[in-house]
């Protein structure tokens, strides 16, 4: 078992890949019986400080419908200078520049340690990065001031050659002409009518005028700083009982159209800053009457959300246009009420843009999260990349079913595309307009070998991931990852296949499928589907005597999987009624793009316990971990919660930490803060920070996440008075596992 753990970790470290199964069943039928599909989490631009890029073009297979990249799995005849493509078996001559290669002198791309390799390629003139700020001016004065300052600050973080533009909106939409001359000009659009790209171009005069809206930072930074400093709140008065008229839809349309007309197919970020929902024009989410609240999940369930369908369709069209041009859209939404993320989420989800949700622009959460958009890597380059195109090639026995992540389909048909779709399917290529080193896609495969066909020659299946992208230093690069796994006959080697199961990856991959379904299916149906897969998996791999639940056991490689599914069912990704539609959209947005470690934290939060009795230790996410003389640190990804047990809280209130003799208590209080620091310093988006204690109103963040093993239902039944009881009717993990075992062992299932 430990060998697979090592194997899994090495592969993730080197290639940014985690497969659900690391031994592949050699037939389609057997693969479906494994319940969890052969699938992987793939991080295309995983940070690899130890991987220097090579400065030449990749060598491609010459077969027109293959074009796989030369890789360590290829057979090479060094004497004849020929290589055989491992995907299509075509024999290809090496290009002339490879005349000097030999066994002893191999190019990097043939060496096993370069299963992941990056090429820097020349593709025309390097294009500058483009940042287009789209700013809502219907904000409270203090909020607007804070936002203005953040925008001014960001100008100092942008590279001098980046192009920058500004659109402001409220009731009207204003496109600001940036120049280094004194006079500030802008073009105004009505916020009520949508405009086609052509109309925008016509209305803003000639093409050269168009370019004056996007100018290099080094030329316009002083003027733009002043312009931002002078921005006023939207001048249209807001009557009592009304919302401001906010024309977000038209503003975005102008932004997308502007970029479409001037810089198609160049890396660009539209950054939308909003303080409330769109209330007029196309894409409006709610009317301006405050007495009509913005839609809740209940409204949506009762089909009582007037604008939902139309607005969603409007933003989807914009999102698709943007994606086609390789432009990404970020949404920075800071308001106490919802802002329409449910309708607008596709703008970011389809283009790889960020969604940041906060209460106000005048918070450290927004300010620091926004700063981190411009964070730099070990080379001093931005961590953002643009115009990503991911292509997946597979050996014959595999086909691609689809991808789940911040991408759109490029509709690339071919022999490796399966007819069964999972996620964004029907293609072997996807566009990821904006990506960073943690962007992770879920990719799903299908084994197509027929049952009883012999295990393929050479015994290994292969997948190649080719990611072309624009680096933030404007170079064009291609990263190629080629992996292989052994085929195994499920009839005779089921135990080996079982031991190759990566339960963490599988949990996240299945969870992504669940969230994907939840976008179009009813909640209870998704839960039923998830449950059914879990039961089937337990039936397949559980060791038990028929109809005897107490005999049920799972091997180590699957032992954590049911617990992950238990927490997934309770998670905000699938339980929506405790959150607003915007919150659910926000959580899901982040869930389907994070790497494995962060995704698992989201599914099953981490809980550490601090006490005088020993070093800090991870404890069960269970109510029994809540004890009076412990401090708990919980990380849900979206929140960091520090919870002081009852006794700790009393001591703290009494001020013992201020007394010299109780220095150790002071250190105890400090320890979780220090440990939380790394997370707070690096995570994007920055999490909320909850410092609470027993009986505190914010303790609910902890209480709602822990397994309610002690509830008011069973507290006295167990006869133990340990841990803090939770007031809930949620089923506990114990009850869940009992039910699961019963169903798995049942001969009538």
């Amino acid at each position, binding site marked *: 078992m430990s060998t697979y753990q090592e194997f899994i970790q090495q592969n993730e470290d080197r290639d940014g890949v985690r497969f659900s199964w690391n031994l592949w069943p050699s037939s389609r039928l057997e693969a479906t019986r494994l319940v969890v599909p052969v699938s992987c989490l793939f991080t295309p631009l995983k940070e690899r400080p130890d991987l220097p890029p090579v400065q030449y073009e990749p060598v491609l297979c010459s077969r027109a419908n293959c074009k796989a990249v030369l890789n360590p799995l290829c057979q090479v005849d060094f004497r004849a200078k020929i290589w055989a493509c491992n995907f299509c078996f075509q024999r290809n001559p090496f290009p002339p520049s490879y005349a000097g290669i030999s066994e002893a002198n191999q190019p990097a791309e043939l060496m096993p340690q370069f299963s992941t390799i990056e090429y820097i390629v020349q593709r025309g003139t390097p294009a500058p990065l483009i940042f287009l700020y789209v700013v809502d001016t219907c904000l409270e004065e203090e909020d607007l001031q804070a936002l203005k300052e953040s925008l*001014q600050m960001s100008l100092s973080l942008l590279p001098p050659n980046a192009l920058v533009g500004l659109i402001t909106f409220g009731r009207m939409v204003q496109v600001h002409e940036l120049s280094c001359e004194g006079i500030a000009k802008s073009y105004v659009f009505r916020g009520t009518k949508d405009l086609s790209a052509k109309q925008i171009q016509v209305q803003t005069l000639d093409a050269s005028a168009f370019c004056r809206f996007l100018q290099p930072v080094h030329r316009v930074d002083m003027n733009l700083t002043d312009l931002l400093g002078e921005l006023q709140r939207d001048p249209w008065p807001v009557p009592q009982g009304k919302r401001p008229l906010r024309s977000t839809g038209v503003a975005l349309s102008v932004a997308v159209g502007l970029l479409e007309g001037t810089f198609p197919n160049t890396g660009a970020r539209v950054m939308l800053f909003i303080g409330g929902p769109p209330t007029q024009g196309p894409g409006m989410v709610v009317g301006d009457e405050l007495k009509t609240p913005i839609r809740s999940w209940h409204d949506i369930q009762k089909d009582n959300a007037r604008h939902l369908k139309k607005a969603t369709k409007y933003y989807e069209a914009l999102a698709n246009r943007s994606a086609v041009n390789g432009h990404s859209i970020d949404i920075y939404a800071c308001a106490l009420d919802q802002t329409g993320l449910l309708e607008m989420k596709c703008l970011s989800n389809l283009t790889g843009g960020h969604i940041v949700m906060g209460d106000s622009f005048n918070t450290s959460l927004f300010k620091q999260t926004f700063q981190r958009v411009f964070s730099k890597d070990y080379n001093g380059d931005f961590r953002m990349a643009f115009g990503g195109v991911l292509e997946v090639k597979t050996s014959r026995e595999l086909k691609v079913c689809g991808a789940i992540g911040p991408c759109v389909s490029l509709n690339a048909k071919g022999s490796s595309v399966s007819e069964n779709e999972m996620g964004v399917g029907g293609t072997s290529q996807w566009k990821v307009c904006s990506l960073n080193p943690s962007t992770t896609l879920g990719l799903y495969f299908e084994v197509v070998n027929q049952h009883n066909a012999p295990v393929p020659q050479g015994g290994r299946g292969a997948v190649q991931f080719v990611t072309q992208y624009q680096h933030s230093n404007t170079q064009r690069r291609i990263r190629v990852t080629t992996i292989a796994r052994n085929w195994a006959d499920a009839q005779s080697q089921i135990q080996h296949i079982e031991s190759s199961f990566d339960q963490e990856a599988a949990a996240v991959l299945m969870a992504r499928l669940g969230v994907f379904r939840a976008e179009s299916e009813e909640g209870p149906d998704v839960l039923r589907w998830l449950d059914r897969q879990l039961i089937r998996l337990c039936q397949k791999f559980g060791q038990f005597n028929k109809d005897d639940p107490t005999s049920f056991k799972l091997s180590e490689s699957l032992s954590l999987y049911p617990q992950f599914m238990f927490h997934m069912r309770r998670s905000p990704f699938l339980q929506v009624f405790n959150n607003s539609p915007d919150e659910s959209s926000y959580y899901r947005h982040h869930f389907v793009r994070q790497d494995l470690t962060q995704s698992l934290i989201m599914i099953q939060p981490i809980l550490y316990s601090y006490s005088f009795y020993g070093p800090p230790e991870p404890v069960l996410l269970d109510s029994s971990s809540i004890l009076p003389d412990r401090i708990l640190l919980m990380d849900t990804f979206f929140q960091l919660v520090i919870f002081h047990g009852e006794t700790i809280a009393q001591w703290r209130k009494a001020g013992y930490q201020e007394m010299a003799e*109780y220095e150790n208590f002071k250190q105890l209080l400090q320890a979780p803060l220090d440990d939380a620091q790394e997370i707070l310093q690096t995570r994007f988006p920055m999490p909320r920070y909850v410092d609470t204690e027993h009986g505190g109103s914010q303790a609910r963040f902890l209480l709602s996440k822990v397994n309610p093993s002690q509830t008011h239902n069973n507290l006295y039944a167990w006869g133990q008075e340990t841990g803090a009881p939770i007031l809930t009717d949620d089923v506990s993990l114990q009850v869940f596992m009992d039910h699961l075992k019963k169903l798995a062992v049942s001969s009538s299932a």
Partner: protein
Amino acid sequence: GQEKDKYIAPSAERGWNDPPQFSYNLQNARGQQKGHLTRRAAPPTSSAPPTIPLSSNPLAPPPCSLAPPPRLQGKKQNCFMMKCCHGNNRSDGFLTAGPPTTTTPPVQPGSQEEEGGGDQTQCEPDVEVVLSSLNRALATCRQSVKDQVCNDVEKRLLLLDDSWRAGKLSLPVRRRMEALSLELRAGHWDSANEIHRSLMVDHVTEVSQWMVGVKRLIAETRNLNPELLEQLQDTSVTDQDSDLLQG
């Protein structure tokens, strides 16, 4: 003081559950992420709820006189802290309680140099000195850079001067501006830029009106042709404040 270690503790007024704020330098001083908060406890094997030995009975009423926490046994014990590989950040506790410990936070290669070369300089930065450095650079720029740009920069340097003399700038800002002017004089463009960025990030409210002028000044000065640069640096070296320049 080491301002780079400064945190702003979370404020209940500003935002619900707003996290603490880290300074620009602390933000950038992060090393390779160790991700040490990733372990989970092993799942229970039986279906009974987990039992943990009782240390105190939480359902009993609180004791009449609070039992104090266990006392120190002699020396301070640090073993309750999580073992961090990068472990030096212990001193940067973000509740600014107590003086930092003897360990120093890690400094990334190429990251910002110490402010003014050390914390021995307790004397107040001199606005005259700082502004004269900046104005000297501007004067040199006037020989080759467009008037419009130079005038815009000058406008902002005046604003800086006014704000400083009116006492509107906090000590950290004044200190960093002094450091920036020294870096500019020494031709350390990247360092000067880093300081400008750190000021924009940490003190945007105080500096946003004029900082972009300083930023532009750095950009234009570094692009001056070599003769002009030499000219500028010659005058700097003969300046009587050269003792402030650290090795």
